[in-house]
């Protein structure tokens, strides 16, 4: 059995186990962004399991479908840690596992302010065939994706990525700005990028009865992201940029769905990206694990 198949089977088993064994989830109150982050962290003790896909068009090459699973855990009210597994299928080429990421977000301030900073640190262990486009940085452009999977996967990338997330919520709107700095741990310069987002629930008041299609369960917005070059050539030349409307639907059953068509803003960008994702939040995961190991409850 191929390693990828084994991994998928193992992952499916683990996820199924979680869904079967753990208690009813709480309603997720997710922002609809795919790339930008706001300042809200996972609630302590909760585990959020997420699956996302990105379909992308490729000029002069094969379109692709990249996907990733996220396991996001609220370690404390000021620290969220997250683990990713990612892969991709390039049409007329192959399907491969592209690597993993470990991400941490820290909230340094105790209280809510008009602008709320969050510090983000991530380690990525991936290969050159990574296509999830989770961020825009450096001089990443569409033509980088023309390389076949067999060739691209030979490149091993160990990268750290830092972000400063500045987010604000005003009259139901969330506005967020992420500044990205990434460093390939091999001898490469620091690369920079950005992500901007704005979103708002379609209704601000909650209904007095449970409902699936109430406007308050939908959050709509837009995000924009792209690269800003690197330490030696900072700026917009040879960079890609995207604008993407986003829509999130938080279901009372604990599931959350997101969809986002994205559009490249210059000739270096993929012309079209379609992203979608599904999320399920499991409350009290930390306590469950604690009980498994004999902790008191």
């Amino acid at each position, binding site marked *: 059995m191929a*390693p990828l198949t*084994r*991994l998928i089977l193992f992952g499916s088993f683990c996820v199924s186990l979680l869904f079967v064994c753990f208690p009813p989830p*709480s*309603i997720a*109150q997710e*922002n609809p962004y795919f790339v930008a982050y*706001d*300042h*809200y*962290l996972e*609630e*302590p*003790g*909760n585990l959020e399991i997420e699956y996302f896909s990105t379909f992308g068009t490729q000029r002069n090459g094969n379109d692709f479908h990249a996907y990733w699973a996220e*396991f996001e*855990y*609220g*370690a*404390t*009210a*000021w620290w969220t*840690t997250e*683990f990713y*597994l990612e892969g991709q299928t390039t049409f007329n080429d192959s399907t491969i*596992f592209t*690597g*993993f990421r*470990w991400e941490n977000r820290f*909230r340094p301030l*105790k*209280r*809510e302010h008009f602008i709320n900073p969050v510090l983000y640190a991530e380690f990525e*262990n991936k290969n050159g065939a990574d296509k999830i486009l989770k961020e825009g940085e450096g001089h990443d452009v569409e033509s980088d994706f023309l390389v076949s999977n067999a060739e691209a996967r030979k490149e091993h990338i160990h990268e750290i990525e830092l972000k400063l997330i500045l987010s604000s*919520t005003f*009259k*139901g709107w*969330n506005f967020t700005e992420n500044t990205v700095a990434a460093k390939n741990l091999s001898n490469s310069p620091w690369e920079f990028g950005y992500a901007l987002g704005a979103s708002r*629930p379609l209704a*601000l*008041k*909650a*209904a*007095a*009865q*449970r409902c699936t299609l109430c406007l*308050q369960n939908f959050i709509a917005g837009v995000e924009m992201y792209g690269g800003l070059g690197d330490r030696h050539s900072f700026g917009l030349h040879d960079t890609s940029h995207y604008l993407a409307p986003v829509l999130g639907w938080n279901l*009372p059953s604990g599931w959350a769905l997101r969809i986002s068509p994205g559009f490249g803003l210059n000739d270096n960008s993929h012309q079209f990206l379609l992203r979608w994702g599904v999320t399920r939040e499991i*409350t*009290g*995961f*930390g*306590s469950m*694990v*604690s009980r498994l*190991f004999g*902790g*008191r*409850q």
Partner: protein
Amino acid sequence: MRAIAAALGICVTLLAVSVVLAQSRNADKPPAGAAPKYDPAVYAELQKAPEKARRRANPLQNDPDAVAAGAILFEQHCAECHGNAGREGKRGPSLHAAEVQGATPGAIFWILTNGVVRKGMPVWSKLPEPQRWQLVRYIQSLGGSAPAGESTAPKP
């Protein structure tokens, strides 16, 4: 395969960290069946609300649906920690305490907005303002002999 092994290694590390954190969080909790420990210091955060925030009136004070809507929001977002109808849960204190019931709507709203991040309560400003005020109405309705969640709010 090396990447997969590393991925699994990180999963195990994450699990271990979560265990340590969950254990430390549970260390202060009484065993099941024991009388809940009443610690007035838990409620001291309410006193930290600035005067201006404390004086804010609830704009939904006269909204007939606010308590019922707040009950649903409470069950979705708060009951996991504060327990059903706010009667002391796994991590959060009882909301029936005099300190909470005697607090102004503005003070409760301020706590919801800012959380008590260092002590485990997350920021809830991701809920729009009207929903936080609906929660305030529900929390204040718990002060009666029968919590509103059991009398007026729809059952789950």
